[in-house]
């Protein structure tokens, strides 16, 4: 799907976490004893109170933080062992929409989205059409050349989302996608994400918005004081389809 070559045998499990814990010295224990297995192609909701550790969990999967204890495997690789070039290649296969956006405020919206594709040496023409297409879908077509710092918060949130999906990653980690969005826009965003899921991507969405996860057929996990509880085991027919896509 992406330019980077995936391992010859695609493992069925996308994310495997065993007894993972994360402390922030001196006294914060963000996560403790998390065991979690996410099959390829799953659509998973992660909920929990503010400060429960949702973002920390996503950061661990994206190898942005190192776990204090435990094992984390993503697409069959122990990501705590990855370094240099292989870490970079691994990251191109993961798309993350950060809760604090991490936009380059001085740069144009187009560049902010394109950067994820440029890094993977996509062709300029391809980058151009993909960016246009994503902006169109997120109702930001007229902001193509605006510096990202001049957008409203909701617009910035959508740009972050566009960047996460731009490089067509196998694993999408979406942190609080609709915190600054109204209902109509939320629907559009969720539609976009669902299309990615149908195309075979594995999705983990951390959110606090009941409108998104309530009544959905997908597995929903709740974090509470750093521990994981299953809220809804999920009846998702999509799971495991990823390999054929």
């Amino acid at each position, binding site marked *: 799907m992406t330019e980077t070559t995936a391992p010859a045998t695609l493992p069925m499990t996308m994310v495997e976490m065993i007894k993972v814990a994360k402390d922030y010295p001196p006294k914060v224990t963000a996560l403790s004893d998390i065991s979690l297995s996410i099959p390829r192609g799953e659509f998973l909701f992660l909920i929990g109170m503010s400060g429960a550790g949702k973002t920390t969990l996503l950061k661990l999967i*994206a190898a*942005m933080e190192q776990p204090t204890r435990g094992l984390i495997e993503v697409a069959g690789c122990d990501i705590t062992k990855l370094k*240099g*070039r292989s870490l*970079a*290649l*691994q*990251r*191109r*296969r*993961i798309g*993350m929409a950060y809760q604090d956006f*991490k936009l*380059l405020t*001085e*740069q144009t919206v187009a560049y902010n989205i394109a*950067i*994820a594709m*440029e*890094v*993977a*040496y996509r062709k300029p023409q391809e980058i151009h059409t993909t960016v246009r297409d994503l902006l169109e879908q997120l109702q930001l077509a007229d902001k193509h050349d605006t510096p990202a710092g001049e957008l409203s918060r909701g617009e910035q949130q959508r740009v972050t989302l566009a*960047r996460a999906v731009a*490089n067509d990653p196998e694993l999408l980690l979406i942190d609080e996608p609709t915190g600054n969005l109204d209902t109509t826009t939320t629907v559009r965003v969720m539609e976009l994400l669902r299309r990615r899921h149908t195309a075979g991507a594995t999705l983990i969405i951390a959110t606090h918005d009941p409108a998104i996860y309530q009544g959905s057929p997908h597995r929903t996990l709740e974090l509470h004081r750093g521990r994981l509880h299953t809220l809804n085991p999920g009846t998702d027919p999509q799971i495991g389809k990823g390999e054929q896509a």
Partner: protein
Amino acid sequence: MNFWLAVFRQLGRNLRQTWTSQLMTLITVSLSVLIFSFFYLIYCNMLSAGGRLGNDLRLIVYLEEEPGPEMQEQLRRRITDFERVEKIRFISPEQALDLFAGQLGQNRDLLTDVPSDFLPPSMEVTPLKNLRGLHQVSLLADFLDTLPGTIKVQYGQEWVERFYAFTRLLSIIVLLSGTLLVLTATFMVSYTIRLTILGREDEIELLRLVGATNGYIRTPFLLEGVLQGCMGSALGLGSLYLLFQWTLNHFSGPSILNIFSLTFLSLPILAIIIGTAMALCGIASHISMRRALRI
């Protein structure tokens, strides 16, 4: 191919988008190079002026009696055995009297009554130009004093000592200031580049997060540093040249600077300065990058 395309695109973007801080860095590098090379230029010209000033340093050895040709040969041999000198000239009492008469000018007729051997015969020794440290000269003088038949060795000790003290002091000054300035320049370059990179930490972090390799991230910054070093030092040396020309035009009246025929730095030296600046900026970039990447 793809890699270099991306790198140059990135480089172009960096230069375009942060041109103010780029300009700042450029000015800083230029100033550092300007100051350093200015100092170096002064040093070089001092040295050659010093050489020229000492040009007519010679030791006068007063002898008991005029040496015959054989004796002259022997003296020459003994002196050159001790140390290579540029020239040895023997002055007979008659020649000495002539010289003295010339000095007296209109009063020379006072000397008509004087016997022709009234002044002692002497020998004029001109040391080699590269052997003119005060110490060597006085060693030579001491040696000449031990030669048989020597009455006295004279070489304007006072002036020579002063001149060499002056030159020595200058060397110390140049050495110290040079060290200081190289330190400052290095410090400033790396400081400036670190600050430039600090201003783009966000971008570097994002690049890492979206899966850019270290080479992809570092190379544009490295090239930028090298470019800065190249352009900055060229600019600095250019300004120095202008300054130099200006000084020549304004102060090179025939009466003052005739013995200081100033020369600019030679081409190889210019090339070395530019090359060093480029290397230095590149290294500073690299070190700053390593730091930033460790985040």
